């Protein structure tokens, strides 16, 4: 009797173990597949640890293209901020954003020459649009002097973290002083004379209450 009881218990335990082992193997396969998909995407856009969910996180993505910039951005919940974009010296565009939920997105800034103008496409999760300038100095600097320009890109190479109410430059493309002066001497039209060393500035600025 005891022998039968013992064998029954062993059989039941063995069955439960085999079922558990099968499920563990199956879930292990699923977990491995998910991890491999995540690793493949993160290889393209970079891994992104959210250290403090109350902070804005920004990491630059290498686009491998000279006139293209991209970032992976995390905005915390109840984020209220303004994005200021200055491309043409004649003015700055302001884009306001607020959201109750935290959000993560890819932001892009791309420059292209089109019909004699230099155009700047910006895409954030809250807005996208194109600014353009026909300033000859702009065109020449971006088209012919690209490798000599100063480029400051937030989140490159390190992940940038900052308070939502902190002012922070996202991208600044500027002419070195000597190059700026020499280009200004060559192009004495009024548009070029009104230019500053900055060709493009995109920054997070404090939002008015």
């Amino acid at each position: 009797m005891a022998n039968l009881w013992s064998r029954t218990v062993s059989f039941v335990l063995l069955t439960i173990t085999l079922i558990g082992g099968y499920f563990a193997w199956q879930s292990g396969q699923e977990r491995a597949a998910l991890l491999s998909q995540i690793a493949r995407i993160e290889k393209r856009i970079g891994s992104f640890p959210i250290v403090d969910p109350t902070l804005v996180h920004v990491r630059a993505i290498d686009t491998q293209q000279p006139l293209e910039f991209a970032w992976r951005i995390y905005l915390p919940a109840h984020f209220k901020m303004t994005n200021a974009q200055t491309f043409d010296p004649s003015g700055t565009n302001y884009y306001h954003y607020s959201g109750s939920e935290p959000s993560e997105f890819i932001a892009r800034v791309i420059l292209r020459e089109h019909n004699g103008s230099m155009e700047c496409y910006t895409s954030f999760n809250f807005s996208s649009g194109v600014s353009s300038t026909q300033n000859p100095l702009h065109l020449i600097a971006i088209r012919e002097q690209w490798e000599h320009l100063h480029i400051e890109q937030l989140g490159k190479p390190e992940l940038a973290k900052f308070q939502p109410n902190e002012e922070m430059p996202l991208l600044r493309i500027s002419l070195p002083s000597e190059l700026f002066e020499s280009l200004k001497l060559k192009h004495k039209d009024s548009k070029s004379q009104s230019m500053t060393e900055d060709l493009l500035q995109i920054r997070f600025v404090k939002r008015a209450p």
Partner: protein
Amino acid sequence: MNIDKSIRTSRPRLFRLQVGLRHILLLTLCVGAWVANWTNQSQIAKLKPRLATLQKLAPELIVSDPSRIAIVLLDSKWYSELRWDVYVPSSNFQLCLAARDIAESGYPDQYENVLLPKGRYELQIQEVSQTDGFRIRVTQNEESLLDIAETPTFGSNGSSSFIRTGPSLQFDGLTEIDLLRRRFMVPVPGSPGSSRTTIGPTKGVLLWIKPN
């Protein structure tokens, strides 16, 4: 007599001890297997939303069944451009583009088309309004596949659009698959500057994949 007694009592004890060890071993394996499954399941529950977020951030084409068409909309790199990553399972499909007689459903008689041999394509459609006309171009790696030139005022009244978005999807390809169906609005008679949607066929941009 004493010896006999001791033999009778010691045998069952030894038997119980051996069985107990086997049970303990099986129980340990059983708990191990189920704990491993529970750990995997709880990690899967965390990984799935993370993957969904990442797939939205960086869409990628997933071909689970190589006998079916797969399509995913990629990130736009310009305001008037759309890009799709497309997998075509055989050479039985064509890519079609039309700019006139676009209804809410169905397909116009007049259209440009190109054969899509089996393979993977990064298709891009650009709609450019230029001084000399309105241009609709479909390219694959900078190479032009389809091109339609229209009048400069073409598409100046706004539009309503269906764009194939969302995660990577697979289709059997037995019927047409719309990638983009944009229908331009029409001017409101007697109200300059105003436009409205129309029910019937109208100007627009229609890009679709069609079985041969």
